[in-house]
Protein backbone atom coordinates (compact mmCIF):
# COMPACT_ATOMS: atom_id res chain seq x y z
CA UNK A 1 0.00 0.00 0.00
CA UNK A 2 1.24 3.44 -0.87
CA UNK A 3 0.22 7.07 -0.36
CA UNK A 4 -1.07 9.07 -3.30
CA UNK A 5 -1.69 12.82 -3.27
CA UNK A 6 -4.36 14.80 -5.14
CA UNK A 7 -3.76 18.20 -6.77
CA UNK A 8 -5.44 19.90 -3.79
CA UNK A 9 -2.91 18.36 -1.40
CA UNK A 10 -5.06 15.61 0.18
CA UNK A 11 -3.52 12.22 0.84
CA UNK A 12 -5.20 8.88 0.03
CA UNK A 13 -3.92 5.37 0.69
CA UNK A 14 -3.72 3.15 -2.36
CA UNK A 15 -3.28 -0.62 -2.88
CA UNK A 16 -1.23 -1.90 -5.82
CA UNK A 17 -2.68 -4.85 -7.75
CA UNK A 18 -0.62 -6.59 -10.42
CA UNK A 19 -2.26 -8.22 -13.45
CA UNK A 20 -0.06 -11.28 -13.87
CA UNK A 21 -0.50 -13.46 -17.01
CA UNK A 22 -4.30 -13.31 -17.22
CA UNK A 23 -5.86 -15.21 -20.10
CA UNK A 24 -9.44 -15.95 -21.12
CA UNK A 25 -9.84 -19.73 -20.86
CA UNK A 26 -13.36 -20.64 -21.98
CA UNK A 27 -16.59 -19.19 -23.24
CA UNK A 28 -19.85 -20.62 -21.84
CA UNK A 29 -22.86 -19.50 -23.88
CA UNK A 30 -26.17 -18.29 -22.42
CA UNK A 31 -27.96 -21.63 -22.78
CA UNK A 32 -25.10 -23.68 -21.28
CA UNK A 33 -24.84 -21.54 -18.18
CA UNK A 34 -28.71 -21.85 -17.87
CA UNK A 35 -29.18 -18.23 -16.90
CA UNK A 36 -29.72 -14.93 -18.59
CA UNK A 37 -26.08 -14.03 -19.21
CA UNK A 38 -23.12 -15.65 -20.89
CA UNK A 39 -20.00 -16.48 -18.85
CA UNK A 40 -16.30 -16.17 -19.52
CA UNK A 41 -13.80 -18.28 -17.60
CA UNK A 42 -10.60 -16.37 -16.85
CA UNK A 43 -7.37 -17.71 -15.35
CA UNK A 44 -4.68 -15.89 -13.33
CA UNK A 45 -1.02 -16.45 -12.42
CA UNK A 46 1.04 -19.14 -14.24
CA UNK A 47 2.11 -22.23 -12.25
CA UNK A 48 3.72 -25.57 -13.05
CA UNK A 49 1.56 -28.08 -15.01
CA UNK A 50 2.93 -31.18 -13.30
CA UNK A 51 0.77 -31.44 -10.19
CA UNK A 52 -2.67 -31.78 -11.81
CA UNK A 53 -4.50 -34.61 -13.56
CA UNK A 54 -4.99 -34.71 -17.34
CA UNK A 55 -8.73 -34.07 -17.05
CA UNK A 56 -8.21 -30.78 -15.19
CA UNK A 57 -5.52 -29.69 -17.64
CA UNK A 58 -7.99 -29.97 -20.58
CA UNK A 59 -9.32 -26.43 -20.24
CA UNK A 60 -5.80 -25.02 -20.38
CA UNK A 61 -4.84 -27.20 -23.35
CA UNK A 62 -7.85 -26.09 -25.40
CA UNK A 63 -7.07 -22.45 -24.79
CA UNK A 64 -3.36 -23.05 -25.47
CA UNK A 65 -2.26 -21.46 -22.25
CA UNK A 66 0.02 -22.61 -19.34
CA UNK A 67 -1.69 -23.82 -16.19
CA UNK A 68 -3.13 -21.04 -14.02
CA UNK A 69 -3.25 -20.90 -10.23
CA UNK A 70 -6.67 -19.25 -10.00
CA UNK A 71 -9.67 -19.76 -12.28
CA UNK A 72 -12.84 -17.61 -11.95
CA UNK A 73 -15.95 -16.94 -13.99
CA UNK A 74 -17.27 -13.54 -14.96
CA UNK A 75 -20.86 -12.95 -16.08
CA UNK A 76 -20.69 -11.11 -19.38
CA UNK A 77 -23.20 -9.56 -21.80
CA UNK A 78 -23.35 -10.95 -25.35
CA UNK A 79 -21.51 -8.01 -26.96
CA UNK A 80 -18.50 -8.38 -24.67
CA UNK A 81 -17.52 -11.95 -25.57
CA UNK A 82 -13.80 -12.50 -26.06
CA UNK A 83 -12.11 -15.39 -27.84
CA UNK A 84 -10.52 -17.93 -25.46
CA UNK A 85 -6.75 -17.57 -25.33
CA UNK A 86 -6.59 -13.75 -25.46
CA UNK A 87 -4.40 -12.19 -22.77
CA UNK A 88 -5.92 -9.55 -20.50
CA UNK A 89 -3.95 -6.47 -19.44
CA UNK A 90 -4.17 -3.84 -16.71
CA UNK A 91 -5.15 -1.21 -19.32
CA UNK A 92 -8.60 -2.86 -19.35
CA UNK A 93 -9.28 -0.58 -16.38
CA UNK A 94 -8.81 3.16 -16.79
CA UNK A 95 -8.21 5.77 -14.04
CA UNK A 96 -11.49 7.25 -12.81
CA UNK A 97 -13.39 3.95 -12.94
CA UNK A 98 -14.81 2.26 -9.87
CA UNK A 99 -14.12 -1.35 -9.07
CA UNK A 100 -15.05 -4.19 -6.67
CA UNK A 101 -12.24 -6.39 -5.37
CA UNK A 102 -12.87 -9.93 -4.08
CA UNK A 103 -10.33 -12.11 -2.32
CA UNK A 104 -9.96 -14.68 0.46
CA UNK A 105 -9.39 -12.91 3.79
CA UNK A 106 -6.37 -13.68 5.98
CA UNK A 107 -7.02 -16.91 7.86
CA UNK A 108 -6.90 -16.50 11.64
CA UNK A 109 -7.63 -20.13 12.58
CA UNK A 110 -9.96 -21.19 15.38
CA UNK A 111 -10.87 -18.00 17.24
CA UNK A 112 -12.95 -17.19 20.26
CA UNK A 113 -16.14 -15.21 20.28
CA UNK A 114 -14.54 -11.88 21.28
CA UNK A 115 -12.17 -11.71 18.31
CA UNK A 116 -14.48 -13.39 15.80
CA UNK A 117 -17.74 -11.51 16.51
CA UNK A 118 -16.64 -8.60 18.70
CA UNK A 119 -18.44 -9.67 21.89
CA UNK A 120 -17.62 -7.68 25.03
CA UNK A 121 -16.72 -10.62 27.30
CA UNK A 122 -16.78 -10.28 31.10
CA UNK A 123 -14.89 -8.03 33.59
CA UNK A 124 -11.38 -9.05 34.63
CA UNK A 125 -12.02 -8.90 38.38
CA UNK A 126 -14.83 -8.38 40.92
CA UNK A 127 -15.46 -12.05 41.55
CA UNK A 128 -15.56 -13.49 38.00
CA UNK A 129 -14.75 -17.21 38.25
CA UNK A 130 -12.92 -18.45 35.17
CA UNK A 131 -15.13 -16.33 32.88
CA UNK A 132 -13.45 -13.47 31.04
CA UNK A 133 -13.78 -14.11 27.28
CA UNK A 134 -16.82 -16.44 27.15
CA UNK A 135 -20.03 -15.76 25.20
CA UNK A 136 -22.31 -15.87 28.26
CA UNK A 137 -25.93 -16.77 27.46
CA UNK A 138 -26.65 -18.29 24.05
CA UNK A 139 -30.49 -18.26 23.96
CA UNK A 140 -33.61 -17.39 25.96
CA UNK A 141 -35.73 -19.68 28.15
CA UNK A 142 -38.88 -19.45 26.01
CA UNK A 143 -37.13 -20.45 22.80
CA UNK A 144 -35.81 -23.67 24.44
CA UNK A 145 -33.44 -24.12 21.51
CA UNK A 146 -30.43 -22.38 20.02
CA UNK A 147 -31.19 -20.59 16.76
CA UNK A 148 -29.37 -21.49 13.59
CA UNK A 149 -26.51 -19.15 12.83
CA UNK A 150 -25.85 -18.32 16.49
CA UNK A 151 -22.54 -16.48 16.77
CA UNK A 152 -20.11 -18.90 18.41
CA UNK A 153 -16.36 -19.59 18.33
CA UNK A 154 -15.04 -21.20 15.16
CA UNK A 155 -12.62 -20.89 12.25
CA UNK A 156 -12.22 -17.21 11.31
CA UNK A 157 -11.00 -15.82 8.01
CA UNK A 158 -9.99 -17.61 4.82
CA UNK A 159 -13.38 -16.83 3.20
CA UNK A 160 -14.18 -14.74 0.16
CA UNK A 161 -15.05 -11.13 0.90
CA UNK A 162 -15.49 -8.11 -1.39
CA UNK A 163 -14.73 -4.41 -0.95
CA UNK A 164 -17.10 -2.36 -3.10
CA UNK A 165 -16.73 0.96 -4.86
CA UNK A 166 -12.94 1.39 -4.94
CA UNK A 167 -11.66 4.12 -7.24
CA UNK A 168 -8.87 3.41 -9.71
CA UNK A 169 -6.35 6.28 -9.35
CA UNK A 170 -3.58 5.18 -11.68
CA UNK A 171 -2.70 2.40 -14.12
CA UNK A 172 0.88 1.41 -15.02
CA UNK A 173 0.78 -0.22 -18.47
CA UNK A 174 4.44 -1.27 -18.53
CA UNK A 175 4.26 -3.48 -15.43
CA UNK A 176 0.44 -4.04 -15.54
CA UNK A 177 -0.32 -2.51 -12.15
CA UNK A 178 -3.66 -1.03 -11.03
CA UNK A 179 -3.63 1.51 -8.16
CA UNK A 180 -6.88 1.02 -6.27
CA UNK A 181 -8.14 3.33 -3.48
CA UNK A 182 -8.24 2.05 0.09
CA UNK A 183 -7.56 -1.46 1.36
CA UNK A 184 -8.36 -4.80 -0.19
CA UNK A 185 -9.11 -8.17 1.51
CA UNK A 186 -6.31 -10.75 1.56
CA UNK A 187 -2.65 -10.95 2.56
CA UNK A 188 0.23 -9.48 0.52
CA UNK A 189 0.80 -11.23 -2.84
CA UNK A 190 -2.53 -13.07 -2.71
CA UNK A 191 -4.76 -13.63 -5.76
CA UNK A 192 -7.62 -11.22 -6.20
CA UNK A 193 -10.64 -10.81 -8.51
CA UNK A 194 -11.32 -7.32 -9.86
CA UNK A 195 -14.73 -6.45 -11.38
CA UNK A 196 -16.61 -3.31 -12.36
CA UNK A 197 -18.75 -1.93 -9.52
CA UNK A 198 -22.28 -3.08 -8.95
CA UNK A 199 -23.05 0.02 -6.83
CA UNK A 200 -25.68 2.31 -8.45
CA UNK A 201 -23.94 5.58 -7.40
CA UNK A 202 -20.98 4.88 -9.66
CA UNK A 203 -23.02 3.65 -12.65
CA UNK A 204 -22.16 6.75 -14.70
CA UNK A 205 -18.48 6.82 -13.83
CA UNK A 206 -17.37 3.95 -16.05
CA UNK A 207 -17.57 5.96 -19.27
CA UNK A 208 -15.79 4.90 -22.47
CA UNK A 209 -13.91 1.91 -21.13
CA UNK A 210 -11.87 -0.12 -23.63
CA UNK A 211 -14.60 -2.48 -24.87
CA UNK A 212 -14.61 -5.54 -24.83
CA UNK A 213 -11.05 -5.31 -23.48
CA UNK A 214 -7.66 -3.71 -24.17
CA UNK A 215 -5.91 -5.65 -26.94
CA UNK A 216 -2.14 -5.08 -27.06
CA UNK A 217 -1.96 -5.40 -30.85
CA UNK A 218 0.08 -2.26 -31.28
CA UNK A 219 -2.77 -0.16 -32.74
CA UNK A 220 -3.10 2.04 -29.69
CA UNK A 221 0.10 3.38 -28.11
CA UNK A 222 -0.62 4.07 -24.44
CA UNK A 223 1.81 6.07 -22.25
CA UNK A 224 3.57 4.09 -19.54
CA UNK A 225 1.49 5.64 -16.73
CA UNK A 226 -2.17 6.64 -16.91
CA UNK A 227 -3.24 9.06 -14.17
CA UNK A 228 -6.65 10.26 -13.01
CA UNK A 229 -7.26 14.02 -13.51
CA UNK A 230 -7.03 14.82 -9.81
CA UNK A 231 -3.84 12.87 -9.08
CA UNK A 232 -0.69 14.88 -8.33
CA UNK A 233 2.04 13.66 -10.66
CA UNK A 234 5.58 13.91 -9.35
CA UNK A 235 6.78 15.67 -12.51
CA UNK A 236 4.76 18.78 -11.51
CA UNK A 237 6.13 21.40 -9.06
CA UNK A 238 4.81 21.56 -5.50
CA UNK A 239 1.18 22.40 -4.79
CA UNK A 240 0.39 26.05 -3.98
CA UNK A 241 -2.88 27.60 -2.88
CA UNK A 242 -3.50 30.77 -4.87
Amino acid at each position, binding site marked *: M*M*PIWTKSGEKHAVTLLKVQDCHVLKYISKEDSDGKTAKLVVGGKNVSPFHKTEAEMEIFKEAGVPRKQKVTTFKVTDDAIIKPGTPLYAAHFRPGQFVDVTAKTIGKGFQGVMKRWGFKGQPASHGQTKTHRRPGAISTNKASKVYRGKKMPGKMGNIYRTSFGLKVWRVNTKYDIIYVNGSVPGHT*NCLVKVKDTKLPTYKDCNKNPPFPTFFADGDEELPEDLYDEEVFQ*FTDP*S*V*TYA
Partner: protein
Amino acid sequence: CRRSDGEPAKFQPPPKPVIVDKQKQREERRFLSPEFIPPRGRTDPLKFYIERKDMIQRRKVFNIPEFYVGSILAVTTADPYADGKTNRFVGICIQRGGKGLGATFVLRNVIEEQGVEICYELYSPRIQEIKVLKLEKRLDDNLMYLRDALPEYSTFDVNMKPVSHLDYEEIPVNKLQVRMKPKPWSKRWERPKYNIKGIKFELPEKKMKEAQKWSQPWLEFDMLREYDTSKIEEKIWREVNKELKK
Protein backbone atom coordinates in the same frame (compact mmCIF):
# COMPACT_ATOMS: atom_id res chain seq x y z
CA CYS B 1 77.64 30.54 4.73
CA ARG B 2 80.02 27.62 4.59
CA ARG B 3 79.46 23.99 5.39
CA SER B 4 81.52 22.25 8.06
CA ASP B 5 83.97 20.61 5.56
CA GLY B 6 84.91 23.99 4.07
CA GLU B 7 83.24 23.59 0.63
CA PRO B 8 80.77 26.19 -0.73
CA ALA B 9 77.17 25.24 -0.02
CA LYS B 10 75.44 23.71 -3.03
CA PHE B 11 72.24 25.37 -4.10
CA GLN B 12 69.36 23.42 -2.61
CA PRO B 13 66.07 24.33 -4.30
CA PRO B 14 63.24 24.92 -1.77
CA PRO B 15 61.03 21.83 -1.24
CA LYS B 16 58.04 21.78 -3.59
CA PRO B 17 54.75 22.64 -1.80
CA VAL B 18 52.59 19.55 -1.37
CA ILE B 19 49.04 20.51 -2.33
CA VAL B 20 46.64 18.43 -0.30
CA ASP B 21 43.26 18.70 -2.03
CA LYS B 22 40.92 17.53 0.70
CA GLN B 23 38.00 17.36 -1.67
CA LYS B 24 39.56 14.75 -3.90
CA GLN B 25 41.37 13.03 -1.05
CA ARG B 26 38.25 12.29 0.93
CA GLU B 27 36.13 9.56 -0.63
CA GLU B 28 32.80 10.72 -1.92
CA ARG B 29 30.55 10.44 1.10
CA ARG B 30 27.84 7.92 0.44
CA PHE B 31 24.64 9.06 2.02
CA LEU B 32 21.46 7.15 1.27
CA SER B 33 18.27 8.49 2.85
CA PRO B 34 16.94 5.79 5.22
CA GLU B 35 13.51 5.64 3.54
CA PHE B 36 15.02 4.06 0.40
CA ILE B 37 16.03 0.91 2.26
CA PRO B 38 13.14 -1.60 1.93
CA PRO B 39 11.95 -3.21 5.18
CA ARG B 40 12.29 -6.95 5.73
CA GLY B 41 9.19 -8.80 4.55
CA ARG B 42 7.55 -10.87 1.87
CA THR B 43 6.56 -8.00 -0.45
CA ASP B 44 7.46 -8.20 -4.13
CA PRO B 45 10.64 -6.20 -4.87
CA LEU B 46 8.81 -4.76 -7.88
CA LYS B 47 6.69 -2.67 -5.51
CA PHE B 48 9.83 -1.11 -3.98
CA TYR B 49 11.27 -0.48 -7.44
CA ILE B 50 8.15 1.39 -8.56
CA GLU B 51 8.05 3.37 -5.31
CA ARG B 52 11.72 4.29 -5.76
CA LYS B 53 11.02 5.52 -9.29
CA ASP B 54 8.34 7.86 -7.92
CA MET B 55 10.64 9.05 -5.11
CA ILE B 56 13.48 9.79 -7.54
CA GLN B 57 11.05 11.64 -9.81
CA ARG B 58 9.99 13.84 -6.91
CA ARG B 59 13.61 14.45 -5.91
CA LYS B 60 14.42 15.63 -9.42
CA VAL B 61 11.78 18.36 -9.20
CA PHE B 62 12.19 19.24 -5.51
CA ASN B 63 15.45 19.13 -3.60
CA ILE B 64 15.34 17.03 -0.41
CA PRO B 65 18.66 17.74 1.37
CA GLU B 66 20.67 15.33 3.40
CA PHE B 67 19.89 15.57 7.11
CA TYR B 68 20.04 13.44 10.23
CA VAL B 69 18.19 13.18 13.53
CA GLY B 70 19.49 16.14 15.54
CA SER B 71 19.89 18.62 12.68
CA ILE B 72 17.93 21.85 12.67
CA LEU B 73 15.63 22.35 9.67
CA ALA B 74 13.32 25.08 8.37
CA VAL B 75 10.31 23.79 6.40
CA THR B 76 7.84 25.93 4.41
CA THR B 77 4.53 24.27 3.48
CA ALA B 78 1.53 25.50 1.52
CA ASP B 79 -1.33 26.29 3.88
CA PRO B 80 -4.72 27.44 2.55
CA TYR B 81 -5.63 29.08 5.87
CA ALA B 82 -2.47 31.15 6.50
CA ASP B 83 -1.54 34.67 5.33
CA GLY B 84 0.55 34.47 2.18
CA LYS B 85 -0.61 30.85 1.92
CA THR B 86 2.73 29.54 3.29
CA ASN B 87 3.67 28.33 6.74
CA ARG B 88 7.32 28.27 7.93
CA PHE B 89 8.44 26.12 10.87
CA VAL B 90 11.93 25.78 12.32
CA GLY B 91 12.83 22.88 14.59
CA ILE B 92 15.18 20.06 15.48
CA CYS B 93 14.53 16.72 13.82
CA ILE B 94 13.79 14.21 16.59
CA GLN B 95 12.66 11.21 14.55
CA ARG B 96 12.71 9.92 10.97
CA GLY B 97 10.12 7.23 10.35
CA GLY B 98 8.36 5.39 7.57
CA LYS B 99 9.72 3.79 4.42
CA GLY B 100 9.16 4.65 0.78
CA LEU B 101 6.83 7.48 -0.23
CA GLY B 102 5.26 7.71 3.23
CA ALA B 103 8.53 8.69 4.94
CA THR B 104 8.05 11.29 7.70
CA PHE B 105 10.20 13.39 9.99
CA VAL B 106 9.18 15.13 13.23
CA LEU B 107 10.45 18.64 14.01
CA ARG B 108 10.36 19.98 17.55
CA ASN B 109 10.65 23.53 18.86
CA VAL B 110 9.48 25.52 21.87
CA ILE B 111 7.54 28.63 20.82
CA GLU B 112 6.46 31.11 23.55
CA GLU B 113 7.08 28.48 26.25
CA GLN B 114 4.86 25.89 24.50
CA GLY B 115 6.53 22.80 23.02
CA VAL B 116 5.38 22.15 19.44
CA GLU B 117 6.09 19.03 17.38
CA ILE B 118 5.08 18.78 13.73
CA CYS B 119 5.31 15.57 11.69
CA TYR B 120 5.99 16.30 7.99
CA GLU B 121 5.88 13.88 5.07
CA LEU B 122 9.07 14.11 3.00
CA TYR B 123 7.32 13.50 -0.34
CA SER B 124 4.14 15.49 0.26
CA PRO B 125 3.48 17.96 -2.58
CA ARG B 126 2.46 20.64 -0.07
CA ILE B 127 6.04 21.16 1.09
CA GLN B 128 7.55 24.12 -0.75
CA GLU B 129 11.08 24.12 0.69
CA ILE B 130 13.23 22.17 3.13
CA LYS B 131 16.35 24.03 4.31
CA VAL B 132 19.00 22.62 6.61
CA LEU B 133 20.05 25.37 9.04
CA LYS B 134 22.54 23.24 10.96
CA LEU B 135 23.66 19.79 9.82
CA GLU B 136 24.78 17.64 12.73
CA LYS B 137 24.24 14.25 14.31
CA ARG B 138 23.52 13.39 17.94
CA LEU B 139 24.41 10.40 20.02
CA ASP B 140 21.00 8.74 19.49
CA ASP B 141 18.74 7.92 16.54
CA ASN B 142 15.60 9.02 18.33
CA LEU B 143 15.43 12.20 20.39
CA MET B 144 11.96 11.66 21.85
CA TYR B 145 13.45 12.21 25.32
CA LEU B 146 13.63 15.94 24.57
CA ARG B 147 9.96 16.03 25.63
CA ASP B 148 11.06 15.26 29.19
CA ALA B 149 14.21 17.36 29.07
CA LEU B 150 14.46 20.97 30.22
CA PRO B 151 12.88 23.28 27.60
CA GLU B 152 16.15 25.08 26.91
CA TYR B 153 17.41 22.03 24.98
CA SER B 154 14.46 22.20 22.53
CA THR B 155 14.31 25.97 21.93
CA PHE B 156 15.78 27.18 18.68
CA ASP B 157 15.65 30.67 17.24
CA VAL B 158 13.07 30.90 14.45
CA ASN B 159 15.17 33.45 12.53
CA MET B 160 18.39 31.53 12.93
CA LYS B 161 21.05 31.97 10.23
CA PRO B 162 22.06 28.79 8.38
CA VAL B 163 25.43 27.44 9.53
CA SER B 164 27.60 26.70 6.49
CA HIS B 165 28.81 23.13 6.07
CA LEU B 166 31.41 22.17 3.48
CA ASP B 167 30.75 19.18 1.23
CA TYR B 168 33.75 17.10 2.08
CA GLU B 169 33.84 17.54 5.84
CA GLU B 170 32.50 14.81 8.06
CA ILE B 171 29.19 15.45 9.78
CA PRO B 172 29.88 16.76 13.32
CA VAL B 173 28.50 14.63 16.15
CA ASN B 174 27.14 16.73 19.00
CA LYS B 175 27.99 14.85 22.18
CA LEU B 176 25.61 16.93 24.26
CA GLN B 177 24.33 15.26 27.43
CA VAL B 178 20.87 16.61 28.11
CA ARG B 179 19.55 17.37 31.62
CA MET B 180 16.04 16.12 32.36
CA LYS B 181 13.07 17.49 34.25
CA PRO B 182 12.25 15.68 37.52
CA LYS B 183 10.55 12.31 37.14
CA PRO B 184 7.83 11.10 36.13
CA TRP B 185 8.78 11.04 32.43
CA SER B 186 6.61 9.98 29.50
CA LYS B 187 8.80 6.90 29.05
CA ARG B 188 11.34 5.30 31.41
CA TRP B 189 14.36 6.51 29.47
CA GLU B 190 16.87 4.99 31.90
CA ARG B 191 15.89 1.44 30.83
CA PRO B 192 18.37 -0.33 28.54
CA LYS B 193 15.77 -1.04 25.83
CA TYR B 194 15.90 2.59 24.68
CA ASN B 195 19.71 2.56 24.75
CA ILE B 196 19.99 6.33 25.17
CA LYS B 197 23.42 7.84 25.41
CA GLY B 198 22.53 11.51 25.27
CA ILE B 199 21.01 12.00 28.74
CA LYS B 200 22.90 13.02 31.86
CA PHE B 201 21.11 10.80 34.36
CA GLU B 202 21.06 12.42 37.79
CA LEU B 203 19.22 9.48 39.34
CA PRO B 204 20.64 7.63 42.37
CA GLU B 205 22.83 4.56 41.69
CA LYS B 206 20.16 2.27 43.11
CA LYS B 207 17.60 3.34 40.47
CA MET B 208 20.10 2.90 37.64
CA LYS B 209 20.93 -0.61 38.86
CA GLU B 210 17.24 -1.45 39.14
CA ALA B 211 16.71 -0.30 35.56
CA GLN B 212 19.38 -2.78 34.39
CA LYS B 213 17.03 -5.59 35.55
CA TRP B 214 15.11 -5.08 32.28
CA SER B 215 18.17 -5.51 30.10
CA GLN B 216 18.01 -8.25 27.46
CA PRO B 217 21.69 -9.12 26.76
CA TRP B 218 20.74 -12.00 24.42
CA LEU B 219 19.12 -9.63 21.91
CA GLU B 220 22.37 -8.62 20.21
CA PHE B 221 23.21 -12.27 19.53
CA ASP B 222 19.79 -13.15 18.09
CA MET B 223 20.50 -14.19 14.51
CA LEU B 224 16.90 -14.09 13.31
CA ARG B 225 16.75 -10.38 14.06
CA GLU B 226 19.80 -9.61 11.92
CA TYR B 227 19.06 -7.57 8.80
CA ASP B 228 22.23 -6.85 6.87
CA THR B 229 21.47 -3.91 4.60
CA SER B 230 25.01 -3.16 3.33
CA LYS B 231 24.65 -4.89 -0.06
CA ILE B 232 21.09 -3.65 -0.61
CA GLU B 233 22.23 -0.12 0.27
CA GLU B 234 25.12 -0.29 -2.23
CA LYS B 235 22.82 -1.35 -5.05
CA ILE B 236 20.13 1.20 -4.26
CA TRP B 237 22.69 4.00 -3.80
CA ARG B 238 24.17 3.31 -7.23
CA GLU B 239 20.73 3.15 -8.83
CA VAL B 240 19.53 6.38 -7.17
CA ASN B 241 22.70 8.29 -8.04
CA LYS B 242 22.56 7.16 -11.66
CA GLU B 243 18.97 8.32 -12.03
CA LEU B 244 19.51 11.65 -10.27
CA LYS B 245 22.52 12.56 -12.40
CA LYS B 246 20.55 12.12 -15.65
